[in-house]
């Protein structure tokens, strides 16, 4: 079972790794050309495994900002992960071994959360480990190669790879939205709200991490009031 879950996680981790490669390639390129050494740049990707947070952190490092500033920025941009971890706290089948939660937490990215949250019923930590074992090398290698090669890889390739993770998200949200009215409403409402935050004056100043938190709180909260989930229903529909 461990092996099966791990293998499935690896398989689902492939599109994530592809998308990560494109993004971290850009990160590596920017950090090294900005003056951060190659190995510290790779170390940032290896220890942080987060896109928006790393780009924001890089800005502060290059500007010579304070440690408080960088800590606060990471807190604001990455706070959405605590919501995802809260959600995953109910879903992870740790078999009573708390140590699994410490490891799963390290790989709690938007994408790995996305695929593991969409698993039916409880999710084995080995599924997450499988996904991390593919996604993390994609993220770190992309950083390394971006740092070394800089502008050698044609932009047309990285541009195409940029949409990989979003294609994957669509594959996760559309089938259940097709089946279930309440999920369909949640998907549509969340997209509209996110678009308003992106395009409306003043609202577009809100950082993307906060937009996700606000949308998730408001839309999921309203949906939970209007369409409370029946006992046992969440298991069946979580597929």
């Amino acid at each position: 079972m461990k092996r099966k879950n791990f293998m499935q996680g690896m398989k689902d981790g492939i599109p994530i790794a592809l998308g990560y490669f494109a993004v971290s390639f850009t990160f590596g390129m920017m950090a090294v050309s900005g003056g951060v050494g190659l190995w510290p740049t790779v170390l940032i990707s290896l220890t942080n495994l987060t896109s928006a947070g790393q780009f924001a952190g890089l800005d502060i490092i290059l500007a010579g900002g304070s440690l408080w500033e960088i800590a606060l920025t990471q807190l604001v941009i990455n706070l959405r992960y605590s919501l995802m971890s809260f959600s995953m706290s109910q879903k992870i089948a740790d078999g009573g071994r708390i140590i699994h939660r410490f490891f799963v937490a390290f790989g709690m990215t938007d994408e790995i959360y996305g695929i593991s949250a969409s698993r039916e019923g409880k999710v084995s930590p080995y599924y997450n480990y499988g996904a991390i074992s593919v996604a993390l090398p994609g993220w770190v290698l992309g950083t390394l190669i971006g740092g070394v090669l800089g502008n050698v890889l044609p932009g047309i390739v990285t541009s195409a790879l940029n949409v990989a993770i979003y294609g994957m998200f669509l594959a996760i949200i559309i089938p259940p939205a097709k089946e279930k009215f309440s999920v369909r409403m949640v998907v549509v409402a969340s997209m509209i709200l996110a678009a308003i935050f992106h395009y409306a004056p003043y609202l577009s100043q809100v950082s993307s991490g906060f937009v996700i938190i606000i949308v998730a709180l408001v839309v999921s909260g309203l949906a939970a009031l209007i369409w409370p989930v029946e006992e046992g229903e969440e298991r069946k529909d979580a597929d």
Partner: protein
Amino acid sequence: MQINIYLYILVMAGVTYLIRMLPLVAIRKEITNRFVKSFLYYVPYACLSAMTFPAMMLAPDSKIAGVVALFVGFLAAFKGKSLITVALCSCATVFVVERLLALL
């Protein structure tokens, strides 16, 4: 005063890990409240939707390619294709559309 790069990395990684780790480790009991359970059921869909739109349209160099990729990805997902298939269809769409636009 120049701050050591490794100190920056330590703070970044530490804050990010704590945010991810604390809820997972602190909340181990099964939640029984129906509202909270329902809320948590909808959170992934809300998060993923907000992350996908409008970001997917803006991710490639060309917004037109992004819009077409969103449409193609939506169709592939609607037909129940796997994660990797939908992801690759979206990437291929951007590649092809951007090549076509370059010809114009």
